């Protein structure tokens, strides 16, 4: 089964083979509110760890989404263009943002596990 880890910027990352699927957490979507638009990276773009590569817009504000791992964008969730509300309704399933072909899979192990991520959420409350 694929393992899920988290960034301190409130992204979740699911690694299958050397491909990481990335989205924002339930906590993040709740904090943002109703998502009305998403700007996704171009397929083929090389991203560095922590690089802003997507933007999520709620009624009130725009927020950056960062690449939690370095690598190449190999796929984006085209369904979000017509239905950005998926980010609110199913943030960790149909509301995924993009997939990265990971350059260095040891980076994944350095991300937060669920318990550590929960502590980040609580510390920001």
């Amino acid at each position, binding site marked *: 089964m694929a393992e899920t880890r988290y960034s301190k910027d409130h992204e979740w990352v699911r690694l299958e083979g050397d491909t990481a699927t990335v989205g924002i957490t339930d906590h993040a979507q709740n904090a943002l*509110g109703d998502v*009305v638009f998403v700007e996704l990276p171009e397929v083929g773009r090389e991203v560095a760890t922590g690089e802003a590569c997507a933007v999520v817009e709620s*009624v009130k504000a725009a927020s950056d989404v960062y690449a939690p791992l370095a690598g190449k964008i190999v796929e984006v969730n085209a369904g979000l263009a017509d239905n950005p509300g998926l980010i609110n309704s199913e943030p960790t399933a149909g509301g995924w943002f993009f997939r990265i072909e990971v350059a260095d899979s040891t980076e994944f192990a350095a991300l937060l596990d669920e318990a550590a991520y929960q502590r980040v959420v609580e510390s920001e409350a």
Partner: protein
Amino acid sequence: MADQETPVLRETPLADLHRELGGRMVPFAGYAMPVQYPAGIMAEHLHCRARAALFDVSHMGQAELMGVGGAAAMEALTPADVLGLKPHRQRYALLTGDAGGILDDFMVTNLPTPEGTDRLFLIVNAANKDADFDRIAAHLPPGLRLQRREDRALLALQGPEAVAAIADHAPGVAALTFMGVAETTLFGVHAIISRSGYTGEDGVEISIPGERAEEVARALLKLDGVLPAGLGARDSLRLEAGLCLHGNDIDATTNPVEAGLVWSIGKRRRTEWNFAGAAVVRDALANGPKRLRVGLRPEGRQPARAHSVIQAADGVPVGEVTSGGFGPSVNAPVAMGYVISDYAADGTALEILVRGKALPCRVAAMPFQPHRYAR
């Protein structure tokens, strides 16, 4: 060591109720205010347009100007026709500076006291209330007194069902027309109720004693069709309605002509030119303003936010967005901003720079969502 100053935020009399309702509290004009409740900005906005939404706007400044000659004294500071305001009528007005800029916008009501003495009731923006009331007090001739009413809370009940919802609990309110004001009771509590608001919908604003505010708000929330709404929905509602937010769309650097608010200048005032900044306003009116506030409709779904640069199709900058977001009722992004007057005609194709990319848009008439006032 703290890496930033954490100012102590003031609270309104409804702070405990906001938290109980799950309001997400944010700093606004020095107050902790609910930006939204668990329903979210989108649902709160749409509910206001469909039924009725209750907003706490107690952070705004309320004051009474007591004494004979108050209207004449106010006319030195605003281009609005205050002398011509009939009893129990309210008017939108601008507080102009000596250089013709808009120091604030406010509501003024001719509200004789129950004893029949002269009184103007003023409501100003929260962020400007100290400066506004200081300026007004400093300009008063002897015999007039400006009494701030920090003891009073202010609620807004807005939406097509708002007036019907309170009609049985607030004598005289159903008979008011848009911009009419009644000094009455609501659930037995003394209330100054105006048929006006900041959403484009029918509805009322309710001034009540702060110590009774929570009790009244709870009673309002029990009425059929009434749900709480936060400042987030208030902002998206007023933007769709094409209404200015002071500090964003109008400020001390914008004059009433370029802001498209000439309608708030009384006809008589345009012959007398005796308000603060009149020369600048007169000149802008005579020669045409260099820039104009316009509505903007971006193509597609992507919102354009305040401070984004507006450019012509050839890439030359022609203005700046002052308010922008997603309009839940319009179901599309909406914005307003200032452009050089040559580019201000409805339908003009322009671009807004969003994160380095040119987003096509058109100048569009406001309001984006038709007003539904009880005229």
